[in-house]
């Protein structure tokens, strides 16, 4: 006889409060930060024990896994999330495969030590890359609604959480935000915000 079990993870603390019946639920990530949602039974897929020591997969191999994941994502049919989601657009696949190849080049040529991203499909038929580390979170997405890359960057600093979102229109802008994620000093995302505000004001 089959029975259903439930495993409970650690709680994520959120920020602001809501209090009306006609409440607006956040449309986008519920403040999911670095390791904020940990499962008791985290899935261990690729770690192997070799000579008594855990074998950590090397980054190029992890990038290969991302290509494989993208390939799987392209096969998703309508309603793959049970909420009326759409198949992934070929343009989004091409865009993110190109970005992946470019990031691999940057790792080689510029020593930009960007880790392999976690890749997910988006319900509207796009693809999103995500990176997490101690106090930083970055996502870059290719969505059907735009030919640019959309991004969201978050950083936890002593004063609170800083969040920056917008559009990346060129490889240079992508490179800049990746440099921030890989090696930017604490709070440096704020400089990106100031720069974005200045750029907006000059238009």
């Amino acid at each position: 006889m089959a029975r259903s079990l439930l495993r409970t993870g650690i709680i994520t603390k959120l920020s602001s409060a809501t209090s009306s019946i006609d409440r607006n639920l956040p449309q986008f990530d519920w403040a999911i930060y670095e390791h904020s949602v940990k499962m008791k039974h985290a899935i261990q897929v690729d770690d192997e024990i070799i000579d008594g020591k855990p074998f950590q997969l090397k980054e190029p191999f992890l990038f290969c896994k991302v290509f494989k994941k993208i390939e799987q994502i392209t096969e998703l049919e309508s309603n793959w999330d049970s909420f009326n989601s759409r198949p992934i657009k070929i343009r989004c696949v091409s865009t993110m495969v190109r970005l992946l190849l470019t990031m691999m080049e940057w790792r080689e040529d510029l020593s930009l030590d960007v880790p392999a991203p976690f890749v997910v499909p988006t319900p509207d038929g796009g693809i999103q890359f995500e990176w997490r580390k101690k106090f930083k979170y970055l996502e870059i997405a290719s969505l059907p609604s735009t030919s640019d890359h959309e991004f969201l960057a978050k950083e936890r600093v002593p004063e609170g959480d800083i969040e920056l979102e917008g559009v990346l229109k060129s490889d240079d802008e992508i490179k800049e935000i990746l440099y921030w994620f890989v090696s930017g000093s604490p709070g440096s995302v704020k400089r990106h915000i100031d720069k974005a505000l200045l750029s907006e004001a000059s238009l």
Partner: protein
Amino acid sequence: MLPEIEEIFDEDDLYRRFTDKYLDDNGNLSSAAFQNTTGTDDMSVDLARLTTPERTALDNENYGVAMIKLALQEIIIKLSSTAHQ
């Protein structure tokens, strides 16, 4: 006939179903799990007191459930799995 409107209180919990594609190897849940239903401005959730996590997960082991605790502004992740006796 119009469906009955259920009032949501601050102490209520909500369940949000998500596909396992949104969980990374470390158990982190993607923000994409909380995006609106395609073509709408709404994110579909179940009122916890009217259902169970299993029903929200459609009794399907490929789905997990995020429990959103409105009063505490917290999310608890639940994964369903099947054990055979």
